[in-house]
């Protein structure tokens, strides 16, 4: 999978690509509700539904950035509401440590967001998506991983195996 990013620089015309890992039980439902309620949102996100935010290995986030994502969102259930009881607690510790590292190497904190949005909070979902797209649009394309927008074919998964 390659995330194609428009080659234009910051400013007009730059459409960021955001990879959003969203939890099946809450944020995905919120996204669904937002769609059904016809809430307006920028179409820049590539949503990947996962069963739990606790399933998100930091490597997935790193890989998304290295493959050309300009921003990454991980969104799960509110603390205490995890379908698997504690998945999001583990996710929070892991992903926010990752955020410290990414922020440290100069990836602006706006580019990597970790949020908790329940199935009912379609408007929060709309707000988060709008925010992240606007912020990343303002920041421009991510330059750290500029050189190698390449991917080993093996990472495309088992579809053909």
């Amino acid at each position, binding site marked *: 999978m390659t995330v194609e990013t428009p080659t234009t620089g910051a400013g007009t015309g730059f459409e960021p690509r955001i990879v959003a890992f969203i939890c099946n039980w809450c944020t995905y439902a919120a996204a669904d509700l937002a769609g059904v309620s016809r809430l307006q949102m920028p179409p820049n996100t590539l949503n990947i539904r996962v069963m739990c935010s606790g399933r998100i290995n930091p490597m997935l986030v790193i890989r998304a950035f290295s493959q050309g994502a300009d921003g990454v969102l991980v969104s799960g259930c509110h603390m205490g509401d995890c379908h698997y009881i504690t998945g999001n607690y583990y996710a929070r510790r892991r992903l926010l440590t990752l955020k410290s590292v990414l922020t440290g190497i100069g990836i602006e904190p706006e580019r990597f967001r970790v949020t908790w949005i329940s199935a009912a909070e379609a408007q929060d979902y709309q707000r988060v998506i709008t925010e992240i797209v606007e912020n990343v649009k303002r920041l421009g394309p991510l330059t750290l991983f500029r050189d190698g927008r390449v*991917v080993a*074919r093996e990472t495309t998964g088992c579809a053909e195996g």
Partner: protein
Amino acid sequence: MSAIRVPASRMEKALAETGWRVMVPSGAGRKGGYVELRAGGRLPRECGDHTKPSTPPKGLVFPNNEELLSYVLGVKGEIEVGPASHTMARTVLYGTPPCDTASFRALDSALLKDMAEPGYAGKRGLLGVIGMACSRAGRWCFCTSVGLSPRSNIGADLMVYPDGDDLLVERVSDRLDGLWKRLEAGAAGADEKALRAVEGKFVPRVLNFVFEAEKLADALEKAFGSPYWKEFSERCVSCGICTFLCPTCHCFDITDVAKDELSGKRLRTWDTCQFPEFTGETSAHNPRKERWARQRQRVLHKFLYHPRNHGHMMCTGCGRCIRYCPVDINIAEGVMRLGGSK
């Protein structure tokens, strides 16, 4: 005339006139490397262990990351293969110590003989090497043990002996004749005697490691089954430092890097016999599963196999693998124990 005496500034000028890219050692140790000389920059006036970078010059003509071909697949199964260009700007390496200079003999014999490795062959043809006599041996140097010396010109096209503000320049091959002619015009000739006199200044000091080259291969072959290999490598961590920093190690890997489902490129990257997966077959069979077998392969490749195939050792005694080994594995110590004079 095969040797001349020129002022050092003349070499600077002549090199600048050629318009070639000049690469020089940028400093000693881990931070150093072979880097391009800035316009108007000064050429190094001496070389030795105190100027020897941790990274050898092999990467210039044998980069860690080289494209071998690109491909585009059609949706109906068509295949289009694009060859890569294995070229670079015409380059001169200046001021390499004899150990790094001699590495090109080993690389040439391994990569150019019989079927040439296209990537190396393309770049090697555009590289000239101006070696320099070494004025300071380091703690880990053992070039005199592998048939070289601080003043050997093996692998060089021109050899330079610093002498005060002058350089004695010896013509070793005809590869840099363009430069040689510029230097030669009107320069004072230096006869053999003068050359030997200056050469004599670069005396091999008594080095710490001594082993006898002639007897080595036979002794190592006998030591193939020695239990010492296990002791030699029990603290080995299987990192690639010894081979990545070796000026003569040239094993590589070929991998495909897909840009997307239908296009991508094939890459050649450095690899090392020290990684377990180096010889691991898809069937899970691995002829060199154990660390000691892999260390043995490294030592024997340098001191037994390569000499058998090409007539000289695949080691120039630069000492990098000893100096930078994180766990103090000492190839000279091992070789001495198994086949040397100690």
